[in-house]
């Protein structure tokens, strides 16, 4: 079984469009949407939810009757989440230090539902996805849960691939998405921002020992910058998995709720197929 994660550093470079295309091209696979903050893969795969689970987080709560206003909790909180002896649940990161130090035992860590995760069926196969609650913490943990479940399904059903749609950035949900995968496909775009962000996310993949490939999306928007990406990859021993041209059919397919390879047989789809052939052989 091979786990493939699609990441980008910069947002909006085309991760989900490519993940959805891989979902329709790969045989025997499970999909996992690990962009738990702003998941979009379901808009192209139209899942039917089969199982639904709560993702529980912890948040501190002060029992005002027991509180003697000694202020010890405020002293130890590193997240500026306590003022006037009340907890701001948005700033509270659930560490539990305030509850531990309170001499009156007036603080309790309560569980609250900070997200949901789902096992669904799509026409391309099973999809594990999630929705982190608004303004909630610990997206990395939710990502790990989604991946764990996808792996379990893949093992049970004897799947060949797990296709993971990753989040933007380089922080905790990205690191959680990268952990234990076989290959990361980094989707880049030929803009100075895209190049800057590619270099950083490729650094993260390298840091955690994950082999990466790069695909340049909308490469024809700026050939000079595309050239620069190729040079960067060459000098860092990263293989280019393909170059995808800019085409307005990509947006059309999205509006129709379809993956681009399903919607059109044009040049974009052909190039994505080539990228898939490369990625699956790694």
């Amino acid at each position: 079984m091979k786990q493939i994660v699609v990441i980008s550093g910069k947002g909006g470079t085309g991760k989900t469009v490519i993940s959805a295309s891989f979902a329709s091209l790969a045989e025997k696979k499970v999909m996992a949407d690990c962009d738990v903050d702003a998941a979009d893969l379901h808009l192209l795969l139209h899942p039917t939810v089969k199982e639904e689970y709560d993702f529980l987080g912890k948040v501190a709560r002060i029992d005002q009757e027991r509180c003697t206003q000694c202020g010890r909790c405020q002293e130890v909180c590193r997240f500026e989440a306590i003022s006037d002896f009340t907890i701001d649940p948005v700033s509270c990161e659930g560490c539990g230090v305030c509850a531990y130090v309170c001499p009156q035992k007036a603080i309790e860590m309560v569980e609250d539902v900070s997200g949901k995760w789902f096992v669904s069926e799509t026409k391309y196969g099973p999809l594990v996805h999630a929705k982190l609650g608004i303004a909630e913490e610990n997206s990395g943990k939710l990502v790990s849960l989604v991946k764990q479940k996808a792996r379990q399904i893949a093992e049970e059903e004897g799947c060949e691939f797990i296709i993971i749609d990753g989040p933007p950035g380089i922080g905790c949900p990205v690191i959680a998405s990268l952990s234990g995968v076989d290959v990361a496909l980094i989707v880049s775009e030929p803009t100075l921002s895209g190049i800057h962000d590619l270099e950083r996310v490729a650094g993260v993949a390298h840091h955690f020992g994950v082999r990466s490939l790069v695909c340049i999306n909308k490469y024809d928007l700026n050939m000079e910058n595309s050239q620069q990406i190729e040079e960067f990859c060459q000098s860092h021993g990263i293989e280019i998995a393909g170059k995808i041209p800019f085409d307005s059919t990509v947006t059309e397919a999205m509006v129709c709720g379809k993956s681009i390879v399903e919607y059109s047989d044009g040049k974009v789809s052909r190039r994505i197929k080539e990228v898939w052939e490369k990625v699956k052989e790694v």
Partner: protein
Amino acid sequence: MVVSVASGKGGTGKTTVAVNLALSLEENVQFLDCDVEEPNAHIFLKPKITHARSLSVLVPKVDEKRCTYCGKCARFCSYNAIAIVKEKVLFFPELCHNCGGCTIVCPEKAIREVKRPKGVIEEGRSGKIRFIKGELNVGEAVSPPLIREVKRAADEDFLTIIDVPPGTSCPVIEAVKESDFCLLVTEPTPFGLNDLILAVEVMRKLKIPFAVVINRSDIGDGKVEEYCEKEKIPILMRIPMDRRIATAYSKGTPIVEEIPEYREKFKELYEKIKQMLSK
């Protein structure tokens, strides 16, 4: 006044709107790049950095001579950053949220805190714009401490524009909270709409006044407009798909330098924000 520029979905044009707004205003502006995982505003503003410092956070260091491997620290840690395997303490610093809990709970006083570099804060100027940027070190997972530090470096006398990271979770909250106003940048596609709805929920939860800017406003479909009308969310600006803008963006050139007429449009955008806030 603090105006933040956010969006659920990445790549919709947050940095473009934030940078061009900053460049168009006559006020004393300071720009905070709080997208510390992937900061990009400097590519467009090309600031002269006058001051850079490293931000360190406190992480635990275990004195193995004192440690009895009782496991209290590992059980206490909410972030799975410590594990005891046989007679060994494993610490995963990139997962540590620096809460200090392990130090407090250790019965042997075997854990003290040491500094670990988390990222860099740069301050400088781009013309008359005061510029502050945070950049998370590659391999670090937890960005809010760095975002907090960027915001601490701000000067309250300025009109502050904050470039916010994408998403809806902790880094976004840290960047937008305490803003007077937030612009949500989206694009008129199903992905743009889905993620705009999430961003709107964030603003409502945090009780921050907000409005929408639609970028590449003539692609996709009309569902973002319909949604905003139904929810009575003002759309303060529409930026059409324009090859000149896309090319300028790819080279790190702000719109207002490529197409100077946009300066007036961004000034109008700011006037509209002020009007909304005065109501």
